[in-house]
């Protein structure tokens, strides 16, 4: 174990606002509460401190998240080498604007990497602003396809190794990104899926009715995923790092040429009809069928369309993410974390 260096700084974006959406009524999705998210950040910081990260810059977080975190750090600071925690000095609005602003400021401060604790939506917002800064993508609920559900302590070790230049050659993976344009102008991005919904308004945001979706474009689709991308995953799986995506036209399950039963959301398994599907090549552009409606990005309704709006989706290279498995494997092979027992560890064991 090495002592943290103040020169090495990582950023943390933890979304305190997620988790109270309409899926609580329509499906069985579960989410971590803010106390658990605060504890997750504390565990992450234990891993960071142990690998030499001296300073953490974090998006301000309400709802008890930051409070829990600070209590946890204070109660164990004497025995563990935690990094210094600095909260960005502004009051959160509890909207996606916080995430946009935090990512901008973290990049300005030159963080080596950013840990993101949230769902697909939070990661999407980070991805549209993070450039080439690597992300550690951690899920805080059961309804996500992009971030991983993973113990934060180990993830913190991997993040710390990457931030201190010891991640190894396989530490980073290049994700895919779906760029959404309306009438030729870029509007937003998605990391997992873009869906055309016949709903007219963003409303309660979450997509929870398969019958609303007419078309779906996925960057990747696992047959064992939950959510919209499972539709694609169960007809033609697309590896997360395969170069292509998939474009699926949905239809009435009673009359469409193909019918597939999918886990559309946690606790919700439904049949959907598939008219056709085809691959979307890298750099390829797919047009979504015309007509007014709403475009959902990574499972949340985001863009309201006018009659006649033309929507196209382009598959491009996305953010870099940290491959925790690979970093830890390499750490084991090279003995990166091996070393003499320090006095801090002895003190910890003596308690």
């Amino acid at each position, binding site marked *: 174990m090495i002592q943290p260096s103040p020169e090495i700084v990582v950023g943390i974006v933890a979304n*305190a606002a997620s988790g*109270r*959406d*309409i899926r*609580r*009524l*329509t499906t069985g999705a579960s989410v971590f*509460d803010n106390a658990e998210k605060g504890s997750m950040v504390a565990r992450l910081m234990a891993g960071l401190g142990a690998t030499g990260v001296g300073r953490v810059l974090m998006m301000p977080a*309400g*709802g*008890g998240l930051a409070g829990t975190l600070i209590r946890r750090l204070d109660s164990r600071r004497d025995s563990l080498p935690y990094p210094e925690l600095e909260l960005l000095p502004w009051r959160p609005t*509890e909207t996606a604007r916080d995430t946009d602003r935090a990512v901008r400021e973290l990049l300005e401060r030159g963080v080596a990497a950013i840990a993101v604790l949230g769902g697909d939506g939070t990661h999407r917002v980070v991805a549209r602003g993070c450039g080439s800064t690597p992300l550690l993508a951690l899920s805080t609920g059961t309804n996500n396809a992009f971030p991983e559900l993973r113990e934060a302590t180990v993830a913190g070790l991997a993040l710390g190794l990457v931030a201190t230049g010891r991640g190894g050659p396989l530490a980073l993976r290049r994700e895919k990104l779906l760029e959404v344009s309306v009438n030729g102008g870029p509007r937003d991005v998605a990391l997992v899926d873009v869906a055309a919904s*016949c*709903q*007219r*308004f*963003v*409303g*309660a*945001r979450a997509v929870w009715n398969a019958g609303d979706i*007419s078309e779906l474009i996925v960057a990747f689709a696992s047959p064992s995923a939950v959510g919209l991308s499972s539709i694609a995953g169960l007809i033609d799986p697309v590896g997360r790092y395969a170069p292509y995506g998939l474009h699926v036209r949905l239809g009435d399950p009673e009359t469409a040429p193909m019918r597939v039963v999918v886990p559309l959301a946690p606790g919700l398994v439904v049949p959907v009809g598939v008219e056709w599907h085809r691959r979307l090549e890298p750099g390829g552009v797919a047009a979504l069928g015309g*007509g*007014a*409606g709403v475009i959902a990005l990574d499972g949340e309704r985001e863009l*309201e*369309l*006018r*009659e006649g709006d033309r929507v196209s989706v382009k598959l491009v290279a996305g953010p870099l993410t940290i491959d925790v498995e690979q970093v830890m494997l390499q750490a084991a092979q090279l003995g990166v974390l091996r070393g003499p027992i320090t006095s801090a560890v002895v003190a910890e064991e003596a308690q």
Partner: protein
Amino acid sequence: MTVTAELSQESLLRGYRTMRTIRDFEERLHIEIANAQIPGFVHLYAGEEAVAAGVCSHLSDEDWVSSTHRGHGHAIAKGCDVKGMMAEIYGRATGLCKGKGGSMHIADFRRGMLGANGIVGGGPPLICGVGLSAKVRRSGQVGVAFLGDGASNQGTFLESLNLSAIWKLPVVFVVENNGYGEATGQSYHQAVEDIAKRADGFGLPGVTVDGNDYFAVAEAAGIAIGRARAGHGPTLLECKTTRFFGHFEGDTQTYRDPNEAAEARASRDCLVAFRARVTDAGLLAGAALDAIDVEIAQLIDESVAEALAAPWPDVSELSTDVYIKY
């Protein structure tokens, strides 16, 4: 692509008319109160219209709502006669409660309006009664309790969450979280930001939506009320919203950033957003909304004029309507 039934022109126009009526009613009271002809306290609902309109769009006269001290919006959205309401607030004999209730006791049982309520947190237990009655009689009725963030700290509310959950009552608790319990900011009076979380401890689902967005409220309320009607039990629906005026008329609002209400009007006005979105989407023409604006302005003018011209209650009315005979 199909347009869902809830977004028919008729229902959109009804939603806008409800919100516009509430807004004009409250803005006019804000002016009239200065003329010192209105007895008693008045608490204005302006800014929060999307909540009452979105929730009540799923209710009929057979369903019941309980309201709060800030009750004009709920009464209008539930279908109470606007002229009768205005006369009531002016304390005139032609008022909905013969001029003897005033702003904080407006009720109209024919419309399923149990009453505004001067007791903070007084509504939820009443709605549990509604729910129990509906359940025992298998009537298919639903009860909705409106309450504020301040009331969400009251024992009456927490006990009602428990009672409704164990009895699986057909009710919805709608928390209008406008950020202030009277003059106390939310962060000073509770340690949670999402009041919907309080549902977890009692075993019912809790959902938070943007209370300034008519469509978000209407969608979530539709699902919650549908669940209640189908026998699946209660829901706690938190709508985060904004109060344009003070706690009561005359409140100097020293506890609030002086620009806060103006900023809310500029960026989070539910009526402005509704108009922009339905016209952008091509669902309604601006002219149809303009026509409603004109019609409602006239209705409010007439309401005030007729209230002022109406007689006071006779002294002989003083002891009537105090007790009810069963």
